[in-house]
């Protein structure tokens, strides 16, 4: 419990610091070639460790290209989206992460089967310190913990990578947050060692 609280506090502090950094006009992020399989796999493992009672499904397309990004930021984005989904859906409902790509973009989404979000809030939730009011919560209206900074950081992280975030309704109820990121020309392939 203490570690949970410490991690929650750490996440909030980290989000606040990151937002301040990413908001500065000339932020220079260290990028490298990263694998979406690894980023999603690491996030999934963290959820299973921190929330053993929750169900998380990972559905990745085959042959996902490498992504040029800051893996630490991308992890933070995914952590925030997953924590958000967990917070706004019931214990027995799964969280589903999808990743696929087309010729120019990589698409990542985190889908929950929670209380959903009204159309009026679908853009506003990305603004800092905006929290959905109980009357705007579609289904159960429970009070959920958070200070309204996580999604603002997610959007800042997406934008600093040239990407965009949007929220749509999950068919059958719930919310899906989708991230689209531009793909770069893939690096040269290593030659197999002999012997």
């Amino acid at each position: 419990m203490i570690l949970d609280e410490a991690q929650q506090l750490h996440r909030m502090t980290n989000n606040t610091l990151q937002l301040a950094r990413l908001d500065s006009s000339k932020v220079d992020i260290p990028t490298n070639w990263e694998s979406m399989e690894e980023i999603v796999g690491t996030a999934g493992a963290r959820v299973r460790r921190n929330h053993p009672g929750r169900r998380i499904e990972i559905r990745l397309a085959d042959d996902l290209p490498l992504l040029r990004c800051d893996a630490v930021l991308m992890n933070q984005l995914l952590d925030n989206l997953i924590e958000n989904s967990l917070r706004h859906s019931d214990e027995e409902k799964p969280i589903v992460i999808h990743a696929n790509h087309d010729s120019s973009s990589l698409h990542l989404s985190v889908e929950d089967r929670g209380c959903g979000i009204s159309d009026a809030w679908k853009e506003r939730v990305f603004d800092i310190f905006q929290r959905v009011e109980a009357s705007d919560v579609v289904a159960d209206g429970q009070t959920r913990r958070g200070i309204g900074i996580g999604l603002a950081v997610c959007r800042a992280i997406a934008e600093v990578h040239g990407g965009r975030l949007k929220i749509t309704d999950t068919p059958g109820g719930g919310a899906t947050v989708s991230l689209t990121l531009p793909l770069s020309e893939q690096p040269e392939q290593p030659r197999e060692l002999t012997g």
Partner: protein
Amino acid sequence: MKTRILLVEDDLTLREVLKQSLELEGFSVDSHSTLAGASAAWAHHLNTLQSVSSFSIVIVDLGLPDGDGGALIRLVRAQSKIPVLVISAREDDVRKINLLDAGADDYLVKPFSIGELKARIRVALRRQMPDLHASAEEIRIGSLEINLPKRIVKRSGERIHLTPTEFNLLARLLSQAGQVVTHRQLLNDVWGAEYVEHVHYLRLYMTQLCAKLEADPAVPALLLTETGVGYRFCELNPPPD
């Protein structure tokens, strides 16, 4: 004889919690808040090797009031092979990687649990035992069998074909099972010094290895990613807590 730990952490509360928790686990802990104090304790250690006051492991926070914990790590590594664990804040990523490349054995990012710290200490100390992994001709993890000298990998008795590079990468990770190996160390040891910046080689080969070795590649249990730092092969035969 109790295993003796040199603990260097400037945060009084964290230092006391760590000291008490580790002492409850049966360790003897010599704790310090400054680089100067820890360096003096280390100098004493060098003069008393093989005695009851010599250390088996060093745990050091990077940010200390009178200097960088990295200075102590370099001092220890220049004079000894005992394990060094780094405690750091997440924003210390670059420094942390440099110190791992310079010889620190593993790291923990705050906040961490005592259980996690104990597991890292256990792995680091086990690696101190002579030839534990070198003598392990065949490693078994669940249904997976890895024969290092013969370069054969099987799952449930069925041979899995690994390319030479995939096997070299696997063997390098297994040589430090349970501990993080940085991107730079892996690229240097598998491909060579001129490839230490080619991180995409690792991404491609680790994806291939995961696809071949993991029961469910989307839920890696053997080949673990340490974001921004490197990779870790899971601990072999961890004892129950």
